[in-house]
């Protein structure tokens, strides 16, 4: 029992690159000299010196085990501190943590990705897998909704994904002059014929309302509930099931999730303030 490494103590990694994705959103590429393997959908606790730790999804290509990528939106204390870090500086990392997307179960079938805002971050590793190995999935569709054209993440990457055969559909809540694409909620993008429901699996990440409506719509289009998976968000202080903050009814989001099949969370999501 004693002598085991303490899962609460971070390792130190150096920032190799810092990419300003848009105002207030920064990707940090960390050097992982010892190699860092993860399952898409997992997250790390990132530690900014003197401020604290927060859960952040891993947003890089899983094949690049020498480079670990995170994409952070500056909203509060810790996330602001993380986005201010520069190449060459070091930060603390604990992980990979949680249960990722159930990709084994999609193999050979259709893959439906639905993201709202920065919810695209934990889905990006999945898109990269699909690009690297086109035979892994039958058809891949991405539905992505964000507030406005200025907050569309990864335009170039999405172009690359398109060229590799992923059907990318993007919408914004409110358009600005020059926007040629769709306007409205992300569920409006979801149409019969985009995928074969009988062999499709859907992976969702975004604000809770967005996921609730997307799950309903995709289920309505024929995807069985148990093949719709959601990445849930709750306050996390430890990430390893010790602190009690991420409780969601009978589940601990950090330990049992963050990815859950719809039947495990559907009724819980209906209860206000759970």
């Amino acid at each position, binding site marked *: 029992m004693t002598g085991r490494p303490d899962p*609460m103590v971070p390792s130190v990694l150096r920032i190799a690159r810092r990419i300003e994705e848009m105002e207030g959103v920064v990707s940090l590429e960390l050097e992982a000299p010892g190699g860092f393997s993860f399952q898409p959908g997992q997250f790390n606790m990132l530690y900014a010196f003197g401020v604290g730790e927060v859960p952040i999804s891993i947003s890089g290509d899983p094949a690049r085990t020498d480079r670990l990528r995170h994409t952070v939106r500056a909203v509060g204390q810790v996330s602001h501190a993380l986005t201010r870090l520069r190449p060459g500086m070091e930060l603390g990392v604990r992980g990979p943590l949680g249960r990722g997307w159930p990709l084994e179960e999609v193999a050979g079938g259709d893959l439906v990705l639905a993201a709202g805002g920065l919810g695209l971050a934990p889905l990006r590793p999945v898109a990269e897998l699909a690009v690297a190995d086109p035979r892994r999935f039958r058809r891949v569709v991405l539905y992505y909704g964000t507030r406005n054209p200025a907050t569309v993440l990864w335009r170039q990457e999405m172009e690359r994904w398109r060229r590799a055969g992923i059907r990318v559909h993007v919408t914004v809540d409110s358009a600005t002059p020059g926007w040629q694409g769709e306007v409205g909620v992300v569920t409006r993008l979801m149409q019969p014929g985009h995928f074969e429901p009988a062999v499709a699996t859907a992976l969702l990440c975004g604000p809770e309302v967005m996921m609730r409506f997307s799950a309903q719509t995709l289920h309505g289009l024929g995807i069985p509930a148990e093949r719709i998976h959601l990445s849930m968000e*709750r306050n996390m202080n430890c990430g390893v099931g*010790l602190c009690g*903050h991420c409780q969601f009814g*009978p589940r601990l989001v950090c330990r049992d999730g963050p990815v859950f099949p719809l039947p495990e969370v559907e009724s819980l999501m209906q209860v206000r303030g759970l």
Partner: protein
Amino acid sequence: MKARLIDKSGLQWLLDRLGSQGYEVLAPCLENGVVEAGPVTSLEELPAGVEEETEAGRYRLRFDGKEGTDLLFSHALTAMGWQRFLHPSSEPLWRAELRGGALEIQPLPAEAPRRALVGLRACDLAAISIQDRVLAQNDPRYARRRENLFLVAVNCGRAAATCFCHAMGTGPEVKQGHDLVLTELVGGGAHRFLVEAGSEAGAGMLQALPGREPEADDWEEKRARIEAASRQRRRLPEDTGDLLASSLDHPHWEKVGERCLACGNCTSVCPTCFCSRMVERTGLDGQQATHWRLRDSCFDSEHSYLHGGPVRRDRAARYRQWLTHKLHHWQAQFGTTGCTGCGRCITWCPVGIDLTEEVAALEVAA
């Protein structure tokens, strides 16, 4: 050897022996007007003859216990649970240093002294085994402190009015999780203790105890005392879990939410509560920081905070979280209930909210 009968001097011998083996001995004593576990070297420090009168929102001590002023364990429970010796209210986890962008993180060793806890009740042992399920696996600090404990439990001879361990199946008889268990006996005018072992370490200690073989009368008195302590008024329905699962939208939560102050007393006295939060404290030079773990409460608005506000905005939602976690969701999370029936949360709630009554209120259809 199965058991030993000792007198007060035998019990003092046990405390001394534990002390000489390097254990810090903690036992119930009087502290700030309540019975609370503290460091003890002599039996004189135990709260002899003290009984607590408890009710929802009420705690009074009587110093003239019904059975005279001899009984050392006439009280029922320590005011707080004993988990603070396993899961301290604050603890530094690691220290970080930043020098020109280079970060160094140093784990800080856990304080894990050898401790003998004397006077725990069956419900207290149940609480430790519940926390073992929650923490021992992933928290090496907890595990180390746990390994260094020697547990001397006591069979209750009387229940407080707020106790419902009998209904929860955790007590009042000590059956597992102890190294030694004492039953305090006074029948026939002789003050003595029946001692039994529950572990190898306990059996070793039992061998050495200065005393004699107990007789039929002693065993009979033990049985009668446990039976007396089993007479308890409060209970929870058998199907509490199902009831809670189907009551998440019950209007009663709003009612109890209007009474609850969200003070968190219930969570600080409950022996199974384990929530914690991490805080970072920086040194004056700004180049050093220490990462602390503090005990936390689900009644705190920050507990469920997500950027923009807490998930559980009102007291109704927080009380529902606490109660459904203890009595139902704990089972799914950790394979055990989260409540031992110790009744502390009932006693120490300033507005007298009683979880057994709240569950009963949910039984009334919405």
